[in-house]
């Protein structure tokens, strides 16, 4: 059993993560003010007490649809207490094209979300096993791939490679960061090359797809996992549904590009409910532990 002192030490160590996670909780479901007493579902519109949402892992207690959760909140759900360590936390948006109004927009998004870029990199322990976990956050420029995101993801993969520990990436992305043009595109090659090297060295990569995973992220590291997991009902694809409808000039079938659709078409190993996320990861990590 844990001693009270140990618990206290963990509490102190996690203070930063806890604060950030609290700030995170429902800000994905903007325009809500956090903390709010009542929160209404973006899908069905019905309201429930915030505490009920929280107990339910931010899945609507009425209709069961998944609300996006912030990166820190997810990390708090995942890690063993007192083990979280953030990596590259000061790496912020670069502006390689000197794109009009981009810096201003980045600053206002940073202020709103408390994030510096669309990915949070970290290492720590899950079920006692050291891991690197990267979480893309859709609140920041729709989780789009920028030069800094590509660099952070690549560095995260390199840390896992160097420390020979499993890598878990939670994807959530609208695709490329338009404001960074070709630099955004190049991050697809950079991150894929890093995954390839990591894989050649025998590293385990669990790719966890959350709503939405599209575009350049789908067409790079997100689909290169040894194990691919997905949250229920997440939109996962390369092209967006609207673009496809315009191309084929007809409506898409119901459930097209949803996690369940991808699972039945052979691209996802398992759809995992949020409440089972940690346990499923621990099972997989243990299965890959060297004797």
């Amino acid at each position, binding site marked *: 059993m844990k001693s009270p002192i140990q618990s206290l030490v963990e509490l102190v160590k996690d203070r930063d993560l806890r604060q950030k996670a609290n700030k995170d909780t429902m800000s994905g479901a903007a325009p809500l003010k956090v903390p709010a007493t009542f929160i209404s579902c973006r899908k069905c519109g019905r309201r429930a007490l915030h505490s009920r949402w929280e107990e339910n892992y931010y899945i609507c207690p009425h209709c069961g649809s998944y609300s996006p959760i912030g990166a820190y909140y997810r990390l708090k759900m995942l890690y063993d207490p007192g083990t979280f360590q953030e990596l590259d936390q000061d790496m912020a948006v670069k502006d390689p094209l000197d794109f009009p109004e981009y810096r201003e927009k980045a600053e206002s998004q940073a202020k709103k979300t408390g994030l510096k870029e669309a990915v949070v990199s970290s290492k720590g322990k899950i079920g006692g096993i050291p891991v690197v976990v990267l979480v893309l956050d859709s609140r920041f420029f729709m989780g789009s791939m920028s030069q800094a995101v590509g660099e952070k993801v690549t560095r995260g993969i390199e840390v896992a490679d160097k420390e020979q520990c499993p890598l878990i990436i939670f994807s959530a992305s609208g695709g490329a960061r*338009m404001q960074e*043009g070709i*630099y955004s595109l190049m991050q697809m090659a950079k991150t894929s*090359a890093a995954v390839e090297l990591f894989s050649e060295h025998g590293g385990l990569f669990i790719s966890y797809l959350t709503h939405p995973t599209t575009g350049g992220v789908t*067409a790079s590291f997100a*689909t290169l996992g040894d194990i691919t997991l997905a949250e229920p009902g997440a939109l996962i694809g*390369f092209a967006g549904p609207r673009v496809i409808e315009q191309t084929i000039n007809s409506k898409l079938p119901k459930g097209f590009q949803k996690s369940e659709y991808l699972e039945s078409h052979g691209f996802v190993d398992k759809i995992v409910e949020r409440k089972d996320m940690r346990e499923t990861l621990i099972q997989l990590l243990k299965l890959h532990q060297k004797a």
Partner: protein
Amino acid sequence: MIKEVLEKTDALEEKIQALLAEEEKTEEIKVLQEEKKKLLDSCKDLEPGDRVFLARHPRRPHVEDFVSALFTDFFEQKGDHLYDEDRSIYGGIARFHGRPVTVLGHRKGRTVEENLSCNFGMTCPEGYRKAKRIMEQAEKFDRPIITFVDTPGAYPGLEAEQHGQGEAIAKNLAFMSSLHVPVIAVVTGEGSSGGALGICVANKILMLENAIYSVLSPEGFATILWKDSSRAAEAAKVMKLTAKDLKEANVADEVVPESLGGAQDDPESLYKALDQVLEKTLAYYDGMSRHEIRKDRLSKFRNI
């Protein structure tokens, strides 16, 4: 701007050709040729939007033209050997200055039927898997790979999604990063989005002077950022998608010059210039070990 100029020069050229058939019209021809030259000279400084127009010019040399002009002994390889033959990727084995190489590229087709059968150069997962299959053999038999990039983007269709468009491109990116043979990519027309990158993870990226390479087509870019596809020319300006811009950004390694007004009317001089650059670039890798060749490519992308 270039569009209007080319309309005029095309009309002049038609007149010249008609006069060539007749005798004793040399003076008249000379005058027309002067006029044509003057028109072309007026567009030495092309706007990015003009380059976009030239990159998509219907008479611009395509992958089949490059293959027949620069290579000998071409043997076409078809199909992904899994499910389908995607004609938007054209490739196989050939000789370049006598040495066996693997060559492949996006195929758009010239006539309407060809355009349709090649899906206008928009590749499906089967095409990326076909490209990968061809490149796997290049690795096995130690052949350098030369790719020709010219696509409006990967195909955003229902089956393409169902068959794993994202996965197919991602696998190519990872695989190409692992190759131990030199990969030279030539962006010949429009290199748009992940659809272009899927065959463009190369040691050296050459760009034809009027080619473009970008995260998305200018139309798509304008739609996403400004919800207005008619602002494509403006988008082209801020995207930095011309060969010159990309050379400055260290994405392109070399720019291959085209004749004034675009390569479509003078492909021979382009073939000659490209042949020289390709030969020089391949020679650069001759002394390198397989390991060094891979490292060279990895460091190019690691530092972007």
